């Protein structure tokens, strides 16, 4: 029999089909037995959360960009106070961009019975490119949206202009030399706020670009603002056009997008994007951890399986094929289910958000699905593949000697693979080195710290010194016996709790910040150019009409001319923060373009770019004086003057001060109304520039500049239906200038509400991922605990003793994890808030109590709940593995 037998041996008759079939059956049986459910669940969770979040972010980002594009009536805008070359428009059109033109100027409008200063805006017939103009047939009624401006010979007027001019729709108005017919009431226009002072000088009068020449109002030297609008759905087309413009005109003309236009919106968008990204990164991280844990447990449970298969003649290669097939099938199942669920999740989010997301969302691309699928593949490759492939090394002798298991792979190798996989995934997903570094850094720090701790624990053999009840002793011995496992568990728990803490704290801080930035009662009208004698009248006018008014700030234009007797020497580099402008600052110029470039005689036309901007900022500031520190200001150095105020002091915004090289105690000379005033710097302040409130770089102590004749500025909150009162106000105080920012504030509040809901939802999603990780981590050591506690019970330990000991052990693990997580979270938050989210980091004191406590309660709860069965089923059954 030897010869024929020999050849039969060398020929293995197991076909790939057989192996694959076996793999499928194995998978099915494991599913039925529950062995693989947690692994599959983790995988599906990973794909679902990543796909869902990616789909949602993708669409939300597009929608937010679209909606914010409405604030510009375009995707990109070019502004100039001179007519920009026509060639720019032609080039844009040849590149497939849609274009439009607008021209803003102030003019008097006359009717047969009155006249009024209006903010005129001429628009080409393609205006608006984004968003809608809302018009109505009569004053103060609901309007209908249209996507065009008035036709030739017609004008659209704001309601209150009609009553001021005592006219109705259909009547004529005269603008310059042209007689035009009022055809509609204009209720809202998308880019109402973009023209600076020119657009805020009075009620809107919109006319066709073709009628501008007829009016003969716009002449060389007139204060006007030209705008070219561009739109295209493809960002790259816009960018390449921008590049062309930059090359062609060397920064003489440049395109602005909504982020350049509105600091508030750009800030909210950037932070929301970072948060969504961070949220999905945590989802990836947690899903990865869950997969690592469940895969390890799964593979541990399969040692016997492999050993048996080997005694039946399976070679390592065949076992490799079987487990590889299992993974491929797992990946396919989780990708399919995960993508569908991800889609559903994002639909659910949208459903929840439909009250806040008012724009229709553009469809998502295919990338979210790719990202989700790749997540599954990478997670499997890095977390599940190594332990499963290590199974191949299981010696068949294991069927005879239980203690034998695979020895070639170190027990921690799978985790190493997992680490690399996660880092890769996070980096690839975020394309953001900073976020990746913070995330990986904090996790690595925890891992390192715990390794050191576990090493120390392993070396210390002394007793813990517990003399309390025997449940304590039992818990301590159990904890020490499972030192290695417990350290691993603590690691997983701390990483999970840390992730959740980071997200929760960040979320709360962001939302608080946004709410503080623009609370419900943010004033939406600015009144300027008020004289001292008018203040009482204005106050009583507001009081009579139930309008909330605020403090009156004196306003006067000042220029720093010397610091300690020397000419100031500002740093040339453009510091974005010191470059901020506010509505207050805008008040100094008629057109906000002139603020930086032409607002000062000193910056001659020849001066270009940076130099001009530096000088511009140095030149003039709107300054004030005040008893009290303005609400959102914070003294960063020195001290604010108190009750016994003395004249001669000044408080300067901190970044502006450092830009000028000013220090506390310096004597600074100002030029105000051709007079020189000198004051000692007593404090630096940080200022919230994005709160839509009067903000000042320079504040004097009362009495220092009072005699120089300031005008006053105040703010008020006016509801939509109160706006008609503006007519009376202007009539009563004709010199007063009113700036309406209500539409802008509404737009910003709306966008912020949307991103707030978005980040809330992401937090919840990640929370679910986190719960899954905690569960699989508790489950990972369940088998052993079952066995051990069953033995303890057979040895006569009572239920209460075992439960108490379990409670103590899990509580300790949870508490340690909570402490580490809190440290890690605060550390990461410090970097995240300072570097990514541009927030001020503050310790969250309550977390230092809540973190460990939550860890303790949650882990103890989960742990005892899962191991409860230990005492409720008979030890015999446990020993017979009925679990």
């Amino acid at each position: 029999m030897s010869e024929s037998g020999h050849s039969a041996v060398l020929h293995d008759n197991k076909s790939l089909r057989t192996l694959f079939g076996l793999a499928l059956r194995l998978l099915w049986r494991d599913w039925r037995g529950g062995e693989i459910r947690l692994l599959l669940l983790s995988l599906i969770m990973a794909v679902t959360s990543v796909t869902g979040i990616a789909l949602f972010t993708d669409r939300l980002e597009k929608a937010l960009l679209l909606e914010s594009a409405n604030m510009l009536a375009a995707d990109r805008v070019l502004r100039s106070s001179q007519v920009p070359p026509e060639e720019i428009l032609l080039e844009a059109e040849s590149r497939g961009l849609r274009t439009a033109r607008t021209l803003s100027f102030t003019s008097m409008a006359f009717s047969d019975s009155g006249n009024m200063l209006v903010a005129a805006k001429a628009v080409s017939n393609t205006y608006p490119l984004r968003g809608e103009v809302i018009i109505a047939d009569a004053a103060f009624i609901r309007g209908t949206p249209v996507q065009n401006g008035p036709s030739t010979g017609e004008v659209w007027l704001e309601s209150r202009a009609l009553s001021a001019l005592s006219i109705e729709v259909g009547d004529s108005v005269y603008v310059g030399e042209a007689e035009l017919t009022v055809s509609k009431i204009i209720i809202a226009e998308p880019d109402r706020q973009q023209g600076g002072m020119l657009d805020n000088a009075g009620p809107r009068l919109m006319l066709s670009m073709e009628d501008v020449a007829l009016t003969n109002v716009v002449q060389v030297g007139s204060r006007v603002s030209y705008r070219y609008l561009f739109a295209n759905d493809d960002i790259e087309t816009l960018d390449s056009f921008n590049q062309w413009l930059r090359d062609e005109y060397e920064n003489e003309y440049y395109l602005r997008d909504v982020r350049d236009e509105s600091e508030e919106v750009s800030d909210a968008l950037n932070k929301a994007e970072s948060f969504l990204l961070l949220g999905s990164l945590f989802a990836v991280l947690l899903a990865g951890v869950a997969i690592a844990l469940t895969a390890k447990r799964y593979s541990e449970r399969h040692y016997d399986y492999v050993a048996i298969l080997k005694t039946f003649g399976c070679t390592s290669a065949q076992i490799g094929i079987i487990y590889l097939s299992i993974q491929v099938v797992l990946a396919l199942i989780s990708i399919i289910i995960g993508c569908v669920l991800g889609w559903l999740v994002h639909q659910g989010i949208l459903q929840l958000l439909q009250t806040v997301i008012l724009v229709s969302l553009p469809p998502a691309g295919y990338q979210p699905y790719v990202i989700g699928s790749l997540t599954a593949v990478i997670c499997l490759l890095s977390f599940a593949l190594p332990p499963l492939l290590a199974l191949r090394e299981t010696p068949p002798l294991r069927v005879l000697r239980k203690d034998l298991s695979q020895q070639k792979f170190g027990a921690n190798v799978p985790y190493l693979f997992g680490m690399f996989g996660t880092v890769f995934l996070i980096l690839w997903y975020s394309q953001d080195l900073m976020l990746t570094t913070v995330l990986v850094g904090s996790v690595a720090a925890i891992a390192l710290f715990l390794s050191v701790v576990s090493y120390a624990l392993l070396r210390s053999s002394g007793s813990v010194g517990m003399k309390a009840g025997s449940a304590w002793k039992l818990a301590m011995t159990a904890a020490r016996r499972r030192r290695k496992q417990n350290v691993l568990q603590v690691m997983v728990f701390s990483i999970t709790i840390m992730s959740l803490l980071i997200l929760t704290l960040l979320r709360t801080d962001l939302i608080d910040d946004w709410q503080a930035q623009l609370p419900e009662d943010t004033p939406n009208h600015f009144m300027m150019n008020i004289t001292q004698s008018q203040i009482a009248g204005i106050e009583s006018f507001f009081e009579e009409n139930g309008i909330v008014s605020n403090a009156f700030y004196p306003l006067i234009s000042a220029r720093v001319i010397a610091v300690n007797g020397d000419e100031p020497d500002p740093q040339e580099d453009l510091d974005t923060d010191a470059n901020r402008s506010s509505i207050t600052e805008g008040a100094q110029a008629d057109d906000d373009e002139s603020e930086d470039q032409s607002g000062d005689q000193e910056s001659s036309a020849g001066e270009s770019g940076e130099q001009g901007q530096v000088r511009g900022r140095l030149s003039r500031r709107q300054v004030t004086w005040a008893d009290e520190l303005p609400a959102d200001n914070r003294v960063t150095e020195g001290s604010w003057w108190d009750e016994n105020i003395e004249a001669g002091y000044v408080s300067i915004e901190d970044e502006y001060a450092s830009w000028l090289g000013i220090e506390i105690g310096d004597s600074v000379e100002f030029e105000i109304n051709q007079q020189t005033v000198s004051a000692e710097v007593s404090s630096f302040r940080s200022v919230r520039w994005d709160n839509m409130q009067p903000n000042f770089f320079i504040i004097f102590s009362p009495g220092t500049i009072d005699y120089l004749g300031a005008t006053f500025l105040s703010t008020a909150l006016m509801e939509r239906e109160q706006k008609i009162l503006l007519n009376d106000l202007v009539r009563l105080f004709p010199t007063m200038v009113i700036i309406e920012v209500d539409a802008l504030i509404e737009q910003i509040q709306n966008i912020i509400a949307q991103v707030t809901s978005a980040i809330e939802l992401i937090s919840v999603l990640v929370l679910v991922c986190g719960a899954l990780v905690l569960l699989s981590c508790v489950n990972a050591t369940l088998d052993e605990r079952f066995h051990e506690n069953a033995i303890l019970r057979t040895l006569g330990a009572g239920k209460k003793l075992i439960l108490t000991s379990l409670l103590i052990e899990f509580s300790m693990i949870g508490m340690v994890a909570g402490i580490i997580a809190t440290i890690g979270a605060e550390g990461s938050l410090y970097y995240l808030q300072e570097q990514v989210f541009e927030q001020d980091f503050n310790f969250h004191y309550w977390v230092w109590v809540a973190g460990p406590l939550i860890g303790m309660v949650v882990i103890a709860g989960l742990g005892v709940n899962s191991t409860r069965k230990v005492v409720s089923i008979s030890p015999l059954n446990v020993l017979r593995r009925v679990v």
Partner: protein
Amino acid sequence: MIQIEQLTKSVDTSEGVLTILKSVSLNIETAETVAIVGASGSGKSTLLGLMAGLDSASSGDVILNGHSLAKMDEEQRAILRGQMVGFVFQSFQLLPSLTALENVMLPIELKGDPEASTKARRLLARVGLEERWHHYPSQLSGGEQQRVAIARAFATEACILFADEPTGNLDTATGDKIVELLFELNREFSTTLVLVTHDERLAKKCGRIVKLVAGEIVSDEKNLAVGTTVDTTGTTPKEDAVSV
């Protein structure tokens, strides 16, 4: 059928090299039933594992049906096991996540046999468990589990069956029934049976008894009570008949 030549197995332990088997030689013929007896720790399981190609020897060789195990790597030994060898273990080694039927089906499925289910059912019926096919190992008693394991062992259609203390985890009565079944099936399939036991009653059912003491064969005797030669006068050697 099985030729063992100068087989030695040593392992490295923390106290130095431990030699578990010391130059063991043995010849087992086709259809023979051999009991390997000896005290716990004498190296019986080690010898069995080496014979079955579950492990590799330090020196010496096992020639299984003409194939030298020493010349094979683990992959080739696996293929050889799949085609020639069946196992029954003390701890049954049923897979807990599989039903009784699926446990028996597993080796048949591995061969790619589409009749796996039918064949497995027939075997389960043969060991008297046709009613319990859908039960999981944890729902079966020890004796029932071992019967499933025996059905599985014969499902491979192997020509050599290795059993490591098949009754070790069972009470005497159950053990007797299992042994009965094992020998019945062994006759039906005319397999070569090598079983390790320290149970004398079990050993006496075998045609030949090999005794191991501290890794060396101290006696190797034909059991005249059974086997081909009908000889009722044969005596079983006493445990202490041979001293080391």
